[in-house]
């Protein structure tokens, strides 16, 4: 191993050790708080006792939403496509604003009234249907497993391409760290490490952009070079190659559709007060836009400093996933390179930690506590039942560890079913949860029949169209599938009985 590699790996090891120590410290602190405040283990482990302030809420929202693709895959595509990919990525600017302003306060109030700690808890309180709860939990666990696996794989391959060590070592390094602190620290450890990781991502953005502009000799000289290498870089459709309907589809997939992602929606249940939410909207909007702009624009500028002949090819097509790693190795000193690589690894870890805690919640809270555990009349009674609380604590930690271990093993040896599910994970979650969440919050007539019909039609059409590669009018399958899910929801709700007692509906619609 060269000196360069040793230095780079040392920086990463120090960063991981820092994450680990910090995550464990938070979990110890949380444990003492649990003991003194008596707010209940479930409430603390799965939603952090609803104590998030503005900065933490903003950072965890962004860090969860931003994955390895924003740092490696996305800039790689921008390298070959040009400004159209920045144009497309900027659709995500209002994400934090949209999620918090539409879901935040409503979720916050309802969650406090119903003691909800997961999106499924909300669905359960709103629709009162075991079928809905079980379908939602199963969909969540399956899609999350697949997404976690692909995130782990992305991070590990990045580690391999930068350090030259087998990706197993990278996986062990950051995989074990993230699984352990999530399992022992719960939601509190997840969101506080997310905050650090979010800050590292912003620093990473500055590093890569600074490097490219410095090496390329300023923006003007970079632009001159781009005009000769790739004349269509400056157009919003890559000179006609990237069609408008395709780009517009992303207004659903990473635009309105994000309201249906349980991993971001659940953050609406975890903040302290309205002031925290207001601050998080502002910080979140500024940071998410900055990250998207800077990372993808860096990809667009990259051809000026990295020739396409320097990239590996598969079947004659250049593999743009190597754009960022190659830039790092070519131009950065090992300490800076280590700091930069910490950013995409942070994006991976923050996404995984959030999914992991939710997958564990779906199993322990949504299934076990709801249907299998002995019944308690209310939360006070549940907290007072000490042996039960102790049992749930052990179960939650062990469940999180086991789910983490399963994903770890899947990553080393990916089962074809999980690989297949991953193709539909992001859109599939939106097709499953968008309608039940939004209609449940804003439409009185919504009911369980609507949810079930909508979930089946939405996922069914999405998987079918994606697998067959059907594009209606040039749009990607998510657009029509969400449309079908909405129609199915409305029709289903009118077919189903509005079998609601006024009092439980009153809780959701006080007006």
């Amino acid at each position, binding site marked *: 191993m060269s000196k360069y590699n040793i230095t780079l790996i040392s920086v990463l090891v120090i960063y991981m050790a820092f994450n680990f120590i910090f995550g464990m410290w938070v979990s110890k602190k949380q444990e003492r708080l649990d003991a003194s405040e008596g707010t209940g283990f479930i409430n603390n482990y799965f939603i952090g006792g609803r104590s998030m302030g503005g900065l933490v809420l903003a950072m965890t929202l962004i860090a969860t939403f931003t994955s390895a693709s924003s740092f490696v895959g996305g800039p790689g595509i921008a390298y070959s496509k040009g400004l159209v990919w920045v144009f497309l990525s900027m659709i995500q600017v*209002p994400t934090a604003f*949209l999620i918090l302003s*539409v879901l935040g306060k409503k979720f916050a*109030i309802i969650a406090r009234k119903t003691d909800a700690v997961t999106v499924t808890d909300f669905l359960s309180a709103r629709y009162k249907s075991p079928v809905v709860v079980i379908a939602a939990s199963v969909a969540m666990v399956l899609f999350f497993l697949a997404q976690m696996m692909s995130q782990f794989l992305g991070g590990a391959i990045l580690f391999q391409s930068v350090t030259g060590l087998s990706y197993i070592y990278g996986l062990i390094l950051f995989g074990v760290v993230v699984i352990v602190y999530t399992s022992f620290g719960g939601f509190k450890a997840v969101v506080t490490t997310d905050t650090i990781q979010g800050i590292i991502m912003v620093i990473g953005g500055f590093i890569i952009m600074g490097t490219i502009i410095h090496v390329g000799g300023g923006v003007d000289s970079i632009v001159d070079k781009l005009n000769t290498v790739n004349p269509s870089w400056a157009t919003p459709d890559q000179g006609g190659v990237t069609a408008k309907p395709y780009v517009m589809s992303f207004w659903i997939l990473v635009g309105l559709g994000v309201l249906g992602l349980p991993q971001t929606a659940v953050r609406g249940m975890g903040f302290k007060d309205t002031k925290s939410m207001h601050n998080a909207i502002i910080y979140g909007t500024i940071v998410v836009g900055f990250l998207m702009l800077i990372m993808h624009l860096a990809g667009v500028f990259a051809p000026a400093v990295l020739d396409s002949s320097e990239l590996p090819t598969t079947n004659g097509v250049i593999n743009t996933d190597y754009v960022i790693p190659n830039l790092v190795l070519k131009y950065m000193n090992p300490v800076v390179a280590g700091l930069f690589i910490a950013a995409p690894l942070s994006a991976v870890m923050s996404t995984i930690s959030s999914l992991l805690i939710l997958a564990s919640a779906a199993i322990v809270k949504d299934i076990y506590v709801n249907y299998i555990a002995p019944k308690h009349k209310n939360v006070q009674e549940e907290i007072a039942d000490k042996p039960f609380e102790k049992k749930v604590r052990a179960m939650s930690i062990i469940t999180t560890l086991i789910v983490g271990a399963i994903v770890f093993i899947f990553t080393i040896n990916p089962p074809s079913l999980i690989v297949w599910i991953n193709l539909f994970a992001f859109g599939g979650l939106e097709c499953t949860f968008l309608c039940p969440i939004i209609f449940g919050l804003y439409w009185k007539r919504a009911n369980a029949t609507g949810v079930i019909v909508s979930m089946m039609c939405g996922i069914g059409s999405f998987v079918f169209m994606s697998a067959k590669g059907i594009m209606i009018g040039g749009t990607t399958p998510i657009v029509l599938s969400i449309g079908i899910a909405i129609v199915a929801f409305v029709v289903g709700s009118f077919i189903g009985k509005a079998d609601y007692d006024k009092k439980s509906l009153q809780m959701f619609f006080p007006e």
Partner: protein
Amino acid sequence: MKKDSYGAPILTEKERAHQIKKEATISMIMYAAFFLWWYFTGYGLGSGDPKDYTYIFGLPMWFFLSCIVGYVGFCVATIIVVKKVFKNFSLEESLDDEMEAKAGDQNE
């Protein structure tokens, strides 16, 4: 006005619901406005031949307006809307809870 332990005013259920609806509506209007700005500056100014583009700071005008001005503008609009339209209120308590509690006392 009564305040909760975080210092946020306590409203009635009706007032809270009304405020939430107002915030959600203005958010959707802002979202639509961002979309229209993005679409018309992006595809409107970017449709011609790149040779005829106006460039600003080395970047094409369509990109500068839709992505950079659009981003900064949306951030500014967000700050204004959050400060002016969004309101703090207690998430834990509402005045209705108290009235119910009072009604309960009187019945006893």
